[in-house]
């Protein structure tokens, strides 16, 4: 019996922080998860699943018109994150809720405040002011029973960028989400003469264009101005052009 088997047999109740940390250490130190450790990881996810239900119920009861979806991280993404150095007991996104709406930045702030009120004590992380390799959103971190649930609140444009990035990450390696180049960066994308490296650079300019557009729209609402209005039109056109270029490069490609 491995250490993981033993801990699983002994602890059918909630996992303690020290048991989670020991599991994290074993994940970091070994290439392959033992069946016992896999069971412990399942148990940890089950505990987060229960918590996810309670957080979603709180949002639903206060904000019934808000569409929310939830997900639990996969084993592999948890393992990868632990091996990149995150402490398993401090991992804040094993369980996640996502809310995406067509809204401007002020409406996003208001929605964040309403969600915060619905879930009670939480920590707000504004990834619009501190973007992570182009990723922008507002996250609310809810801590209950020594576990975390991460609520992501995204505008539709912020989400579109994140979805494109995640989709390309599946094909070109998830490391692109953490500031690294795609695998085989000089390889041509099949439907075009553009390299993965250059297409990825275009995707990153989309993140900046979205940010500029969203900030201008908010400024326009508080201080209407013809010149700014024209800037917004141009920013929209620029964003559409880049997205069309990216979509065209990815057209007719089952494999990227």
């Amino acid at each position: 019996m491995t250490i993981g088997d033993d801990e699983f047999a002994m602890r059918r109740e909630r996992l303690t922080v020290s048991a989670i940390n020991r599991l994290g250490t074993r994940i970091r130190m070994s290439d392959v998860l033992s069946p016992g450790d896999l069971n412990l990881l399942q148990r940890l996810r089950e505990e987060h699943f229960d918590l996810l239900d309670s957080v979603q119920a709180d949002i639903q009861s206060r904000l019934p018109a808000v569409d929310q979806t939830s997900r639990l991280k996969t084993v592999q993404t948890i393992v990868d994150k632990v091996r990149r150095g995150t402490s398993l007991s401090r991992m804040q996104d094993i369980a996640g809720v996502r809310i995406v709406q067509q809204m401007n930045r002020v409406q996003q702030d208001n929605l964040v405040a309403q969600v915060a009120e619905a879930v009670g004590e939480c920590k707000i992380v504004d990834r619009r002011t501190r973007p992570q390799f182009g990723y922008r959103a507002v996250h609310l971190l809810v801590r209950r029973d020594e576990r975390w649930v991460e609520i992501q609140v995204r505008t539709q444009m912020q989400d579109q960028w994140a979805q494109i990035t995640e989709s390309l990450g599946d094909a070109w390696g998830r490391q692109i989400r953490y500031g690294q180049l795609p695998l085989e960066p000089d390889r041509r994308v099949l439907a075009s003469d553009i390299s993965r490296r250059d297409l990825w650079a275009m995707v990153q300019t989309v993140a900046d264009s979205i940010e500029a557009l969203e900030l201008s729209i908010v400024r326009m609402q508080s201080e209407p101005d013809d010149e700014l209005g024209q800037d917004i039109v141009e920013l929209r056109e620029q964003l559409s052009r880049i997205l069309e270029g990216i979509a065209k490069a990815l057209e007719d490609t089952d494999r990227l």
Partner: protein
Amino acid sequence: MKYFLLVYDQQVGRAESVEEFPTLSGPAALARRFELEVEYRARPSIEVVLLGAASRDALVRTHGRYFKTAHELALPA
């Protein structure tokens, strides 16, 4: 809240299957997910994903990458 269990192939960029579980069947959906994760363990490109949503449409809005190609995701809104 319904649950949707997806078997998603990262290499292909599409869900191979989507299994739907009715409201209040979270534990059954989670147990099935664990089974599928074991079943697909030898295929690292497979991601077994369990998502909770009011409807499939809501899911497509928030987790488009499981349902649309990168080309479709990039089309201007």
